C-alpha cells in the first residue's frame, strides 16, 4: 500500500483508515501544489476555523461585520421579483424609471444615502480630516518618490565623480611623465606645476605615513608629536623630523583641489593639449599644435 509513486492520484481513493497515506500524500504534494492538504493539515485548519468561530468576536469585529453587512445591503437595490415591484409594474412602472409626473426633474431613482455621524466633529471636519489625511499620505509618497529618484541620481553622480576623479589622477600622472620624466622629488613641491602638484603631495604623505609605521615597528617609541626639549630646531631638521612643512598652507593647491573634479580634469586636459600637444582621450602625443586626427576637445567626441 506504499504509494511512493508521485504520479498516482494521492489519497483521494483510499478509505479514512489509511493513516499511512500521510507519506504518499506529502510526496504527492509537489505535483499539485496547494490543492491538497494532509490529514493533519486539514485537521489543524478545521480546528483553527472552529476556534475562530467559537471565539466571541471582539466588539470592533462585530461592529465591522455589522457595518459591512449594512453597507452591502444599502448598496443593493430591491429585486424586481418583489411583490411591490409587481404591483407597480401593473400600474405601468418600468425598471429604472422614476415615480411621479413624467416631466418632474426632481424625481429620485435611488434612495437617500445614509451616513451615520460618529463623533462631534463640526461641519466640514470630516472632510477636513480626510483632506489632511490625503495630503499627509500624498506628502509621504512624494517624499518617498523624491528620495527614490534622489538615490538613483546620487549614486549615478557619485559614480561619475569617482570616474572623473580617477581620470584626473591619470591625467596628472601623464602630465608628470611629460614634465618631469627623469626621477622624482627633485623639485621642491611648491615649484611643481599646480596641475599635478597634488600627485606629489599625495606621494609625500604616503611616504611619511610609511616611515612613521616603520619607526613604530622599529621600536622608536617616539610619537611624532613628541618634542624633545633638548633638541633645537636645527637638530630636529637634521634628524629629518621636520623636513619641509607639507602641512603648511598651499593656497594655490588647495584652491585647485577644491574645484570640481570635472573642472580640474578639464583644465588638466586643456593644459596637456596646449603645452604638450597630448590628447588625454586619444592617449597620444601629437606632433604639432594642430593635433590632426584628434576628433575633439571633449571625451564625448572620442566615442
Amino acid at each position, binding site marked *: 500500500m506504499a504509494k511512493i509513486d508521485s504520479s498516482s492520484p494521492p489519497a483521494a481513493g483510499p478509505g479514512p483508515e489509511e493513516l499511512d497515506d500521510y507519506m504518499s500524500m506529502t510526496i504527492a504534494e509537489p505535483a499539485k501544489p496547494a490543492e491538497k492538504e494532509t490529514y493533519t493539515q486539514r485537521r489543524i485548519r478545521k480546528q483553527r476555523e472552529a476556534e475562530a*468561530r*467559537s471565539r*466571541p*468576536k471582539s466588539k470592533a469585529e*462585530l*461592529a465591522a*461585520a*455589522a457595518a459591512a*453587512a*449594512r453597507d452591502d*445591503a*444599502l448598496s*443593493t*437595490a*430591491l429585486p424586481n421579483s*418583489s*411583490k*411591490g*415591484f*409587481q*404591483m*407597480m409594474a*401593473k*400600474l*405601468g*412602472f418600468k425598471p429604472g*424609471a*422614476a*415615480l*411621479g*409626473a*413624467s416631466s*418632474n426633474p*426632481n*424625481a*429620485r*431613482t*435611488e*434612495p*437617500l444615502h*445614509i*451616513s*451615520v*455621524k*460618529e*463623533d*462631534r*466633529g*463640526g*461641519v*466640514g*471636519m470630516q*472632510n*477636513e480630516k480626510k483632506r489632511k489625511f490625503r495630503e499627509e499620505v500624498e506628502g509621504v509618497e512624494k517624499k518617498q518618490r523624491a528620495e527614490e529618484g534622489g538615490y538613483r541620481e546620487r549614486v549615478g553622480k557619485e559614480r561619475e565623480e569617482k570616474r572623473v576623479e580617477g581620470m584626473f589622477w591619470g591625467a596628472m600622472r601623464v602630465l608628470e611623465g611629460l614634465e618631469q620624466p627623469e626621477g622624482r622629488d627633485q623639485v621642491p613641491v611648491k615649484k611643481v606645476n599646480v596641475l599635478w602638484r597634488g600627485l606629489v603631495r599625495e606621494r609625500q604623505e604616503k611616504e611619511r605615513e610609511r616611515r612613521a609605521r616603520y619607526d613604530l615597528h622599529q621600536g622608536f617609541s617616539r610619537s611624532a608629536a613628541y618634542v624633545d626639549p633638548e633638541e633645537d630646531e636645527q637638530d630636529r631638521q637634521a634628524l629629518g623630523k621636520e623636513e619641509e612643512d607639507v602641512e603648511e598652507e598651499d593656497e594655490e593647491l588647495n584652491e585647485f583641489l577644491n574645484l570640481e573634479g570635472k573642472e580640474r580634469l578639464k583644465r588638466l586636459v586643456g593644459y596637456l593639449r596646449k603645452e604638450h600637444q597630448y590628447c588625454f582621450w586619444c592617449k597620444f602625443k601629437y606632433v604639432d599644435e594642430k593635433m590632426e586626427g584628434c576628433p575633439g576637445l571633449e571625451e564625448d567626441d572620442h566615442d
Partner: protein
Amino acid sequence: MDRRPDLQGQGRFKRRKMEDTDSRNSAESDDDGGVKVGNFAQPTEVKPKKEDLDARPSRHTEGIDQLVEKTSKRKRKKEEDAEEASDPYIARQHEEPVPKKKELDPRANPYLAHRYEEPAEDEGSYNGYSNGYGRPTNRMNGVSNASSLARFPRHKSTAAMAKNAEDGPNNPFSGQPLSSQYFSILKTRRNLPVHQQRDEFLQMYQKSQFLVFVGETGSGKTTQIPQFVLFDDQPHIQRKLVACTQPRRVAAMSVAQRVANEMDVTLGDEVGYNIRFEDVTSQKTILKYMTDGMLLREAMNDNNLNRYSTIILDEAHERTLATDTLMGLLKEVAQRRPDLKIVIMSATLDAQKFQSYFNDAPLLAVPGRTHPVEIFYTPEPERDYVEASLRTVLQIHASEPEGDILLFLTGEEEIEDACRKIRLEADEMIREADAGPLTVYPLYGTLPPNQQQKIFDPAPPPSKKGGRPGRKCIVSTNIAETSLTIDGIVYVVDPGFSKQKIYNPRIRVESLLISPISRASAQQRAGRAGRTRPGKCFRLYTEGAFKKELIETTHPEVLRSNLSSTVLDLKKLGIDDLVHFDLMDPPAPETLMRALEELNYLACLDDEGNLTALGKLASEFPLDPTLAVMLISSPEFYCSNEVLSLTALLSVPQVFVRPASARKRADEMKSLFAHPDGDHLTMLNVYHAFKGPEAQANPKQWCHDHFVSLRALQSADNVRQQLKRIMETHEIELVSAPFEDKNYYTNIRRALVAGFFMQVAMKEGNSKTYVTVKDNQNVILHPSTVLQTESDWLLYNEFVLTTKNYIRTVTTVKPEWLMDIAPTYYDITEFGKGPVKSALQRTIDKVRRKEATKGRKR
C-alpha cells in the same frame, strides 16, 4: 406590586347596542356625559367619520388636565350655541344671506343631518352643508353689518372695501360691537408688511385658482392672509370654510388664538382650530386653523374637500409628508372643483419650485420685516461642535452688548447637557469677571408646555443697579428655526447640525440621525437674529464648508419616510395610480415598492394593489399600518384591551424617564415593572400600575417616584380613548383573558406578532448579536432593554441606527408563532440559504414530529 390594572372605566368594555343606523354618532353620545342634543349640530360630527374620531376634544374623566377641562367647557358652550341656532326663531333672523330654498330643506334639520352626509360631494359646491353646518347658521345679527359685508362682491372686493368693514363700528362677521382692544391690534396689523400689498394679493387671488405667496418671517402672512381671504371669499355665505394648515399642532393652536383676538371673536366661534384629538370649532366657524394631517384625514372621507371654499397651505416650505401629499391631492381636486381656491404660503425663496409645480401659478412675494444680520464663520472646522458652541455662547456673553442668544443643538440630551454646562460657566463668570446674569432655557418638542412657555420670559435684570445687563440664552432644537418666534434674539449660534429622520427601504431602517443642515436652514437660523434689531450669527463652520458641504434645501419628509402609511392614505383618498401620483419630489421607486410589499404582507392590499377590507379598516386608525393591523387582529388573541393600551403606549414619547442625575435609581424603578419576556410587556405593566388606585390617588407624585413620564402616560391615555372610540365604531371587540390565565401574556406576545412579524431578529450562534430576518442586518439589543429570557427570536419595535445597529423595545417570540400567524411572510421557500432558513426548517420538523406523536397517541 399589583401589576394588574383596574380595568374599570377604560377596559372591560360593555358594548352598547347602537339604536341608530349611524353607529358613529351614537358612539359619540355614548361617553358624552349626557349632553346629547348638541351632538348632531356639531359640524364635525355630521361630517366625516374619520375626523370626529381624531378631532374630538378629549372628554375622558381620568386625566385632570386643564386642557381637557377647557375643552369640555368650550364644548358645553358650543352645544348651547347649537341649540340656540336650531331655534327656528333665531334662524329666521338669518334669512337674508341664506338662499331661501334651503330654509325648508329637510337637510336643515340637524337631527336628520347624518342621513345626508354621504351625498354631499355629488351636490356640487353650493349644497350648503358641505362645511358641516347642521343648518344655515351664520350669525350676522347686526343687519347693518351684515349688509356691509353682503354688499361685498364676492371675489371682486378691494382693500379699501375691506378697510371700511374692518373699521367697524360692529364686527363684520359676528355683528357685535368691536372692542377697543380690537382697534389697537388693528393699528399694529396695518403696519405689517403684507398690508401694503393687500390689493395686489386680492387681484391675484381673484384671478387665479392657485397662488403662491412668499413671505419671510415677520411679514404677518400666517395671521393676515387668511383674514384677507375671508373678506373676499365670504365663506359664510357659501356655508363653507376657509382652512389654513400648519405643520405643527402648537402653531395651529396659538395662531388660531391670535387671529381670534385680532378678529375680536371667541376662539372656537368664527375662528377655530382642529388638531388631532382636539377640535375647537363650531357651526359658526368660518376660518379653521388645522394641522396638515387633519386636513388629509378629512379628505379621506370627503375626497373633494367640499367643505372648503379656500384652502391655504401655510409653511409649505417645511415640506412635511402631509403637506406634500395634500399638494399632490389638491392638484387633482382643483381640476374637479374649479371653484376651490388654493393659496400656498412659503417662507423661503425657492418659490419657483412651487410655482412651476402648480402649473405656473402667479407668485406674490412680500418682504419680511427683518434687520440685517452679520454672519461670522470659523476659520477652521471645529473638532467638537458642542464644545465650540458653549465656548461661543460664553464669549458672546462676556464681550457682546445686550441681546439674547439662541443656540441650535440637536436633541434633548445634548441640549440639557449644554444648558447645565453653560449655567455652571456663567455662574463662574458672574462671580469672577463681573459678567451680567445669564438665564438658560432648553427648548425641544417633548418639553412640557409650561416649560416651553418659559422661553418667552424677559431676560433677567442686572444683578445690581448699574451693573451689566442680564440676558437669556435659549438652547433649542430646530423648533426655533421657523415655527417659534422669540423676540429679543440678537445672537444666533449655529453649529450646523440637526436631528433628521431618515428612512432607507433597502434595510428598512427609520432613524433619527444627526445630519448637517441645509443652506436654506442655515439662512433661516441666521434670520432669527434679526427680528428686533440688527444681529449677529455665528456659524461654527467655515465659509467653504457652508458652500460646499451643505445641501441647498433640506430633503422633504417624503424622501425620508417609510411610506406604508401614506400609501394607505392615498388609497383611501381614491388615488389608485400611485406610480404616477404627482408629488413635488417623488421618492425612490424602491420606497414605494417596499411600502406596497409591507402592506401586502399585512393583508391591507391584495396582489393587485387594491385596498382590502382589513386595509380599509386599518386606514380608519391614525396609526402606522403595522400597529393598526395588530390592533384590529388583537381580539383573535383575546387581548384587545391590552393591545389597545400597548398601541397607545407605542404611539407616545418614551414612557421611562432616566435623568442623568439619577440613572441608577431610575433603572431600579424600571426593574420593578420589568417583565422577563421583554419591553412591551414591561410598558404594559407600567400602564396598568399607572391606572391602579394607588397611582391615581396622586399621579404626579407616583410618576415622579417611579421615574415614568406623567405626560407620556396621560397622552397615552388620551390616545387610548380615541382609538377605543374608533374600535367601538367599527365593532372591534374589546376583550381580555383573565389575568390568572397562564396564557395571559403569551396571548399578548402572539398578538404582537400579528402586526410586527416583519420586525423580527434571530440570534446568531451563541453570541450576543442578532440578525434581522430577511434583511440580514446584524443588530444588538439596545441597552435600555429589560429582557431577561434567553430567546432565539425577538420581535422589535424599532431598528435604530447609531454608531451601532440597535433593536429597541423587544419581546421574545417563538418561530412556530411566526409561521402560524404570518405564513406568507415566513414561507420557507422564500428564504435564501442561511441560518434563518435552517432554523425555520428545524421548527417545521419539530412541529411535524409533535403532530405525528400526537396522532399516534390517538
